[in-house]
């Protein structure tokens, strides 16, 4: 039987890692990810898993060790946040370029400077073009389940790309909440035995990882990477459906919450989707037609499906928890791109909120919905919760 436990988002991810039982986990502590590595280290010490945990001296080394382990034929996982991801950067691209199915939990935290330990999405958004699949999680339950799903997605032979699973730093990572932990045996069966694709340690079938292809072959290799990302689209749904059979929950590219007859919709990632749902429930009782589109899969981005979901909506606000300084913010940019081919499309309001962990209240969201319902939409960015 599944068990309902009180877990933080970080503990829930560690619980998923325990059930996955990866071969190698190199990790370096950084707030607010630390509790993942710390909790998992305890599982290793207690003999609950037979993972080789490598205490590296930096995140650059954490990802390097993941790359080495994964190329050798091991199932490798790690976790990080903010500056940790930034320091890893060079090897993050190596992992995807070498087509290594590494799974990494990123607990979203603002980037320096100025230094800040709280949540925004500038860390993971900063590497949205590094050819990692990106899955965003609303709560601890989703972070747990997405981590399990990610392993299968990464390792699929038609994909073979690393996956990043996000959740909001402190807001979910350190919030204690109900988590339904699934049966070990079911997860073990779902994950399956790892059969690495062309591992280095298969000495009877020698392969080369990381050669030097210049003008002659680099382009072709990148083209294969583009195809792999394209394949991930469908395979994400297939694996999600398989996981649904165990969890009875759905894993579509996004979640539509009361959008069917909605006039105004908010599009957002991670924990703010939860707060938005609470506001929607209240406003719906007053007969206000409001809804939510919560994006789960950000890379590869489901353009066509998003367009279809939004085509009959009158007004939509896209809420970004990071900016692209000098360009449209990451989520807004993708939503706007999705709508280009439609003849009838919603009017969009871009909002930036929550940088460096600035709170967003239910009142903030209610006010935004009220503005949308009045057709109060401007092409200027709205900064929610900013003192100016």
């Amino acid at each position, binding site marked *: 039987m599944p068990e309902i436990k009180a877990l933080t988002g970080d503990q829930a991810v560690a619980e998923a890692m325990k059930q996955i039982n990866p071969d190698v986990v190199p990790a370096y502590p950084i707030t607010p990810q630390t509790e993942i590595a710390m909790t998992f280290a305890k599982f290793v010490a207690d003999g609950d898993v037979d993972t080789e945990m490598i205490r590296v001296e930096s995140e650059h080394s954490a990802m390097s060790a993941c790359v080495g382990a994964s190329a050798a034929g091991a199932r490798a996982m790690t976790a990080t946040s903010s500056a940790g991801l930034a320091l890893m950067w060079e090897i993050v691209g190596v992992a995807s370029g070498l087509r290594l199915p590494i799974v990494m939990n990123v607990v979203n935290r603002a980037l320096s400077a100025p230094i800040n330990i709280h949540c925004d999405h500038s860390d993971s958004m900063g590497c949205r073009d590094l050819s990692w699949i990106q899955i965003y999680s609303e709560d601890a339950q989703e972070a747990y389940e997405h981590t399990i799903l990610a392993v299968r997605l990464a390792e699929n032979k038609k994909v073979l790309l690393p996956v990043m699973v996000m959740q909001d730093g*402190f807001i*979910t990572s*350190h*919030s204690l909440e109900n988590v339904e932990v699934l049966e070990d045996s079911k997860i073990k069966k779902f994950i399956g035995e790892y059969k690495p694709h062309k591992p280095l340690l298969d000495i009877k079938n020698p392969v080369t990882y990381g050669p030097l292809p210049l003008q002659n072959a680099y382009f072709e290799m990148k083209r294969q990477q583009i195809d792999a990302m394209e394949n991930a689209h469908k395979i994400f749904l297939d694996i999600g459906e398989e996981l649904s059979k165990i969890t009875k929950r759905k894993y579509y590219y996004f979640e539509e919450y009361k959008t069917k007859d909605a006039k105004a919709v908010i599009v957002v990632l991670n924990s703010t989707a939860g707060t938005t749902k609470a506001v929607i429930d209240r406003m719906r009782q007053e007969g206000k037609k409001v809804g939510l589109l919560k994006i789960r899969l950000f890379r590869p981005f489901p353009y066509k499906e998003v367009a279809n979901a939004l085509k009959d909506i009158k007004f939509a606000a896209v809420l970004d928890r990071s900016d692209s300084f000098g360009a449209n913010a990451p989520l807004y940019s993708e939503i706007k791109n999705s709508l280009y081919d439609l003849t009838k499309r919603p009017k969009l309001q871009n909002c930036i909120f929550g940088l460096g962990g600035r709170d967003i209240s239910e009142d903030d969201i209610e006010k935004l919905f009220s503005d949308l319902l009045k057709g109060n939409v401007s092409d200027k960015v709205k900064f929610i919760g900013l003192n100016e």
Partner: protein
Amino acid sequence: MKDILEIRIHGRGGQGAKTASQFIVEAALDQGKYIKAFPEYGPERRGAPVAAFARISDKPIHTYAPITNPDIVLVIDNTLIGFVDVTKGLTNKGILIVNTCEESSKMKEKTKFKGNVYTVDATNISIKLLGKNLPNISMLGALVKIANNISLESLKNKIKEKFLKKIGEEKTEKTIESLIKGYDEVR
């Protein structure tokens, strides 16, 4: 009645405000309720004012918004009154529970709060029973009595589960006694 019971706990770093928020929601979870508990993260120093929050409901809790209008506020350290706004966001229907040897009328005066004020001498209870100033568990006893939707029994079980291995049977029994005394003596 709101769908979600919202609680704020004021204390000083090291007094167990965060632990108290976790114990109460874990006990509620054991009763089949939906829960969330989160501390306020800032510079974490022993003795500095801290706050922890809890949400308890019979329905799933979606919101991650900060708790700005709590139903119940617990003050583990009454020396905070006067320089931390402990009644912030509390309406007149709200409840304030203070760890103090003074009467609730005195606390009403000090906080100028118009709602219900309860007091319990949690510090004294813990010093007598545990030989240390560890008032958070007695405060939870008081909270359970006043909130009236979490059973004392499931909180007892939770304390046993958390403490037995760590501090042994005798101290665990004393801790549970401090919980019951907080429950009995709140007024």
